């Protein structure tokens, strides 16, 4: 049956063990959070020997379930000091799962400082190889080199120089089907944990592996049929629907029209150059340039939404994948940059050096506000990443440590973070439910943790008025549903379909139940999600977090943001209701 791989970086030993009972029915974020809550001392130094990096595919990852190739990465975050889970698409989750591995727990601390290793996992087991000649290399080159050495098609998990320097905005990269460094478990600096443990990369080859055991095949097939139908029917997720046609960046014009598209370090809600960087613009440019460019690109095999893209240079050659809504916002509108080629350069730079694009863009915007660069200085932004972060200069170490650290270095007040993590591309003073999620999520300011944009702006999953400040129940419901989806292995974008089409939701939970051999129904989703949140809240509390940390930055209470000129007026009492369960 499935097993757990425990990797000790002190002894350089990797051994398989039986999955302990407390972890048996979890996957993805449920698995990483339960392991972290049980095995990581909440007061440990995140870069020290007692933190762990937990890697887990979702419950249905590696099966025939559609759109289910997510890998969760968890532990204690060096950026926030809270528990952390961030997840990515790409090739890793299916290959880990098909080797019969439920999760990988990386522990310990290398004896030799500065020495880096490659962990290779295949049907024969796990071995350590020296990674000396990969040290300092960017992830695009690392991906190419590892396919040359270990076989075309292997999954690669890795860190760029930022992770090697243990910078708190270092993300963990997963290769995409074209083997570019395009997918990231970006948020929360888990790349620094991987770097502190001396692990440069992990290669996973599932050739000859046992596949994923499914307890009830008949029920499983019926369940994924329901989910597939819902996904293909819903306007957001269907073929030639919004996501498939324009990608997530379809949201740029929508959020801008809503006046909630944070511009120039959250000083405004509309960007006058949004038209130049929107999903519409990207699609037009991609189609015009031809070559390898495409929209409707799947980030992992078996995805039926296919919302990703490959952006090109004017001659049609590969430039970067992927231009997501968040990345384009962070390195574009939030920095006052209105050119997609510049933004693609900045996304490539983050992917190569190993930074989370959301945090990087928020960091650079705060640095701009602090006078380091002018807003709109794309060239200056590129130099910060390529000259400074990549080489670990003192300025690079400031920038690579994220938004709050940089805000302190430059004496900036308008620092849009919660628990040390920067806010993503939705203005909380306009869309108050997402503000509640930012404030109360166990992860720090995080949009995927409880994506209330859907019912507020997008009217998915029922209606809600974005300006109404009573959002506690909405955020709680979304946070717990999301915790379940993050556990399942399904991509969060399935949420659009399943929260609106009941058969889709049934299919999602019943497919998980069929894999594990449980009796879960839709009524179990909330409680399972709450169990994950409770474990995470418990960890955070023990790590010293109180309700005082479940707040938005002060400036959002008194500084109205144009064009709506609203402030964040959700009361502290209401914020505290979210986790009162």
């Amino acid at each position, binding site marked *: 049956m499935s097993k757990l791989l425990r990797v000790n970086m002190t002894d350089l030993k990797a051994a398989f063990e039986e999955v302990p009972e407390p972890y048996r029915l979890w996957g993805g974020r449920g698995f990483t959070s339960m392991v972290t809550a049980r095995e990581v001392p909440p007061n440990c130094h995140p870069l020290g020997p007692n933190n762990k990096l937990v890697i887990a595919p979702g419950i249905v990852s590696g099966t025939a379930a559609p759109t289910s190739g997510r890998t969760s990465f968890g532990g204690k975050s060096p950026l926030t000091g809270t528990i952390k889970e961030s997840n990515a698409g790409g090739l890793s989750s299916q290959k880990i799962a098909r080797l019969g591995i439920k999760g990988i727990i990386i522990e310990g601390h290398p004896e030799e400082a500065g020495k880096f290793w490659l962990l290779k996992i295949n049907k024969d087991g796990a071995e350590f190889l020296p990674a000396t000649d990969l040290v300092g290399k960017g992830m695009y080159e690392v991906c190419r080199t590892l396919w040359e050495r270990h076989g075309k098609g292997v999954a690669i998990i890795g860190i760029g120089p930022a992770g090697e320097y243990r910078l708190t905005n270092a993300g963990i990269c997963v290769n995409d089907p074209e083997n570019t460094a395009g997918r990231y478990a970006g948020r929360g600096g888990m790349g620094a944990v991987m770097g502190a443990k001396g692990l440069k990369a992990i290669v996973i080859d599932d050739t000859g592996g046992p596949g994923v055991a499914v307890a009830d095949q008949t029920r499983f097939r019926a369940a994924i049929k329901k989910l597939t139908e819902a996904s293909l029917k*819903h*306007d*957001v997720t269907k073929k*030639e*629907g*919004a996501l498939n*046609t*324009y990608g997530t960046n*379809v*949201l740029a*014009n*929508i959020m801008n*029209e*809503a*006046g909630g598209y944070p511009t120039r370090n959250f000083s405004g809600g509309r960007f006058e150059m949004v*038209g*130049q960087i*929107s999903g*519409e*613009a990207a699609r*037009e440019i991609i189609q015009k340039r031809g070559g390898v460019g495409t929209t409707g690109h799947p980030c992992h095999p078996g995805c039926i939404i296919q919302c990703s893209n490959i952006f090109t240079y004017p001659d049609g050659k590969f430039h970067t994948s992927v231009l997501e809504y968040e990345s384009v916002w962070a390195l574009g509108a939030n920095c006052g940059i209105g050119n997609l080629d510049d933004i693609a350069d900045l996304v490539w730079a983050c992917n190569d050096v190993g930074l989370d694009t959301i945090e990087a863009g928020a960091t650079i915007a705060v640095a701009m506000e602090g006078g380091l660069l002018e807003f709109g200085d794309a060239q200056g932004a590129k130099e910060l990443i390529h000259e400074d972060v990549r080489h670990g200069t003192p300025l690079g170490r400031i920038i690579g440590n994220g938004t709050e650290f940089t805000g302190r270095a430059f004496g900036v007040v308008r620092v849009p973070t919660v628990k040390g993590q920067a806010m993503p591309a939705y203005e909380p003073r306009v869309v108050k439910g997402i503000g509640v999620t930012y404030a109360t999520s166990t992860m720090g300011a995080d949009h995927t943790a409880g994506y209330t944009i859907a019912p507020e*702006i*997008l*009217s*998915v999953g029922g*209606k809600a008025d*974005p*300006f109404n400040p009573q959002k506690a129940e909405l955020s709680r419901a979304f946070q717990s549903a999301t915790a379940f989806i993050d556990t399942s292995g399904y991509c969060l974008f399935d949420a*659009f379909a399943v929260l*609106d089409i009941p058969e889709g939701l049934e299919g999602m939970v019943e497919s998980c139940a069929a894999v594990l051999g449980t009796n879960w129904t839709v009524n179990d989703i909330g409680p399972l999600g709450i169990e994950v949140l409770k474990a995470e809240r418990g960890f955070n509390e023990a790590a010293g977090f109180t309700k005082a940390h479940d707040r938005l930055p002060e400036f959002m209470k008194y500084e109205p943001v144009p*064009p*709506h000129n609203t402030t964040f007026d959700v009361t502290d009492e209401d914020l505290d209701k979210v986790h009162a369960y």
Partner: protein
Amino acid sequence: MIEIHLYGRLRRLAAQSGVHRPSVTWVDLPEGTVAQVIEALGVEREAVGNIFVNGRYDPAALDQTVRSGDRLGLFPPDMRMLYV
């Protein structure tokens, strides 16, 4: 005048129909429902997906009354990120 911002296939209704700049047109109605404004544009209801009125999304926007000085945002069905 009611100011209308257009997206996707609907941009063809504006003089500036390129995607890189705002595609804006105006309807000279002192007051009317959003449905009437869309009709005045010569557009079928099926050609319109999500509608914003003065920067606020409203699934029941078609029945809302708008006046001179108001701003409408009209998105086509293939940009529908909102399910009504």
